[in-house]
């Protein structure tokens, strides 16, 4: 095996070198980064000694650069206050940039940007930034900009500032991105489950077309990523951990702007609130946001120093939104339900695996849960929905309170680990092809108040009392082709009108072991 691996490695290295050296002249002709000069700031008066204020010298270089130039900071430590970026001019630093501590400002809701960010970009486009910096305010504040890229950068904030600004602030920007960067220590680390301090890695406000990919966002006072009133956002392949609030939070103002999100392949761990929080509660109406939340992994969110906070969902908290697909996510050891959905429209949960619950609150339109593995489905009191479609899930428990309304409840081919399943609702039920086990005193399946129900092809294993109980308030019940093993009688019919019982295979009064 080792020989095989060695061969693979050698052949891979050899081919890599061969291909790398064998440059294709046709493909090498229009490489953007080769255009323009690389201007070394040390040749224009910057000291890089960590003591001299290099702001003026470097700003002069930036101002004199022309389209396609790259302003370059070689190794050294550069003391810089604020630099005004120039359109079509790249900025690359091997050296470390530090902001003087006396510039540190205080974040407030009324003032969400500082007066002295390290880089200020306003109404410019086509800028590439790659740098290392320790900043006391934002590392970058860009407004009304287009095509700004921050790549392979390392941004470290002031972890003693209890009202820190964010590391990167996009305001009214488009087609911009942050990739391959590490951003941390903006704001004081959260130490209490009840309070937190401002300081977010990336804030995106009123922007479109922002990509945040391949970054490490850690140990910030508030969120890893905070997005407000923005659309067409891709958040992919980031590691977001130990932040004082949610890993990713999306907020609303003008709701029509908030649409088209891809939140994929991220690792969200040990953030003090939710992994992903999309909250439109204040807006008052359900907004279709067309979001894909897929392939993410979350673990241990919703705790501060091992104490639970009020938050901590593992896959997503969704409030007042619609058209959200959650697929292929994995969520473990989080404080709150893996999925918390309140007052939503159309949701799809597919192939998610979690040790947490799916919790539904308030109204919804259509919710599909297919092929998931989760601990429990919990619907809270007074819930009302048009369609709830549960298929081929492995779920520990299904907990439906009395008095809910679901127009169409489909429970098809699920494995339900532990009964009873108590369905006391207005609406129509299809309960078909499920495998249900129960050791509870009230049996396995209790049906009350439904307008109609078909119980077909289920395997029900029950240890105590009646396996299936149908109250007289349940109408149009059809029970056929089920396989029922019960410690008591298989069916307890309280006089349901129009009940039809077909050909079921039944074993009653069987001494079964608890499942």
């Amino acid at each position, binding site marked *: 095996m080792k020989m095989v691996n060695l061969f693979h490695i050698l*052949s*891979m290295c050899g*081919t*890599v070198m061969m*291909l*790398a050296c064998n*440059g*294709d002249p046709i*493909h090498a002709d*229009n*490489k*953007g*980064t080769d255009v323009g000069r690389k201007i070394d700031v040390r040749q224009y008066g910057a000291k890089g000694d960590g003591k001299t204020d290099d702001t003026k010298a470097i700003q002069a270089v930036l101002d004199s650069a022309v389209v396609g130039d790259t302003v370059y900071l070689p190794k050294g430590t550069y003391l810089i206050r604020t630099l005004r970026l120039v359109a079509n001019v790249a900025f690359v630093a091997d050296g470390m940039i530090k902001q003087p501590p006396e510039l540190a400002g205080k974040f407030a809701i009324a003032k969400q940007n500082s007066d002295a960010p390290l880089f200020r970009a306003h109404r410019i486009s086509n800028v590439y930034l790659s740098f290392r910096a320790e900043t006391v305010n934002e590392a970058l504040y860009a407004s009304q900009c287009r095509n700004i*890229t921050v*790549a392979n950068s390392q941004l470290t904030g002031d972890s003693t500032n209890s009202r820190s600004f964010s590391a990167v602030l996009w305001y009214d920007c488009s087609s911009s*991105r942050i*990739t*391959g960067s590490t951003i941390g220590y903006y704001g004081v680390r959260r130490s209490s489950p009840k309070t937190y301090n401002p300081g977010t890695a990336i804030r995106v406000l009123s922007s479109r*077309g922002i*990509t945040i*990919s*391949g970054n490490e966002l850690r140990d910030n006072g508030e969120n890893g990523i905070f997005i407000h009133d923005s659309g*067409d956002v*891709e958040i*992919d*392949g980031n590691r977001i951990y130990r932040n004082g609030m949610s890993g990713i939070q999306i907020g609303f103002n003008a709701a029509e702007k908030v*649409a*088209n999100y*891809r939140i*994929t*392949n991220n690792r969200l761990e040990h953030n003090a609130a939710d992994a992903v929080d999309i909250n439109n509660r204040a807006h008052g109406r359900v907004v279709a946001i*067309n979001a*894909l939340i*897929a*392939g*993410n992994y979350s673990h241990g969110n919703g705790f501060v120093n091992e104490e639970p906070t009020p938050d901590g969902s593992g896959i997503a908290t969704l409030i007042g939104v619609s*058209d959200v*697909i959650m*697929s*292929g*996510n*994995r969520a473990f050891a989080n404080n709150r339900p893996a999925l918390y959905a309140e007052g939503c429209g159309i949701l*799809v949960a*597919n*192939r998610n695996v979690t040790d947490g619950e799916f919790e539904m609150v308030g109204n919804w339109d259509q919710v*599909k849960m*297919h*092929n998931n593995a989760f601990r429990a489905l919990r619907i809270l009191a007074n819930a009302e929905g048009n369609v709830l479609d549960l298929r081929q899930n492995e779920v520990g428990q299904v907990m439906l309170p009395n008095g809910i309304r679901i127009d169409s409840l489909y429970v098809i081919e699920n494995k339900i680990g532990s009964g009873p399943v108590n369905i006391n609702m207005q609406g129509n039920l299809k309960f078909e092809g499920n495998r249900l086990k129960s050791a509870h005193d009230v049996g396995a399946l209790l049906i009350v108040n439904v307008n109609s129900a078909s119980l077909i092809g289920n395997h029900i294993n029950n240890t105590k009392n009646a396996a299936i109980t149908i109250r007289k308030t349940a109408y149009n019940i059809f029970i056929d082709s089920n396989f029922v093993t019960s410690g008591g009688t298989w069916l307890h019919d309280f006089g349901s009108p129009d009940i039809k019982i077909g050909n079921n295979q039944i074993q009653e009064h069987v001494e079964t072991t608890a499942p």
Partner: protein
Amino acid sequence: MMNVNLYIPTLNAGDKWPELLRALNRQTYPVNRRVVIDSGSTDETVERAIAAGFEVIKIAKASFDHGGTRQLAIETYPQAEVYVFLTQDAIPADESMLMNIMVQFNDPQIGMAYGRQLPRAGATLMETHARLFNYPVRTQVRSLEDAGKYGIKTISCSNSFAAYRSSCFLEAGGFPLGTIMGEDVIMAGKLLLKGWKMAYVGDACVYHSHDYTIREEFERYFDIGVFHSDNRWIFESFGRADGEGFRYAKSEIGYVGRRNPFLLPKIFCSFIAKWLGYKLGLVYRILPKDFRRAFSMYKGYWDRL
């Protein structure tokens, strides 16, 4: 009949372009708007398209983006019930190509459909096999329920010849921007996750195949690796297609070996190039930027990062 718009991204479409335009003119299914999105052709692509009744959207060569460019075309000309996409080298095999793919949309659950790709005239054995293996005769309708059986192959599709129901296309948010490839696969995945079905249409055919060099195979599979690395959620959502690569390799060796065994060494080199390209693509993040660009077939993608 449903209202159809046809979109074709172009860049110096070359000798086959007039043939494609003629074949489109022979289609029995009417097209509302024909749209070309041209990235700076210097041959007669644009002139011929205009003469054939196409609307032309011109974009800069550097701004081409597999998803973004197609999305731009739809946003410019959105008024249709079905959006059909072709590539500039996909030649309709007969006059019923459009008709046959459109038939699928009579089923209101179908969100997208894609057609069969036949090897072009003069195709090599390997490109012939690739098309015959991946595009069988039988029409197939797939939904999310099929993920357990087909894995990621459930959402196999190709914008070389594909059609999207506009309502569900818009419902799914349109094509993703900024992907190295696979905007069609992402769209298919989102549609199926939303409960729509997709159809592979065996009797809606185009001639479309490529004779890739070993280097091009490497580059193509590097890009596939990058795409899979960036979109792991697809595997999490639909599962993997275990053994599919091995099955393909076995089939190709058998197909080519029976007809021209002297090509087998080239096939083995091709396997190595594909494997290596794919593996490097999966770990592209640890490669130097210049290597990523050098290894990729889609150079412009890396210039924008």
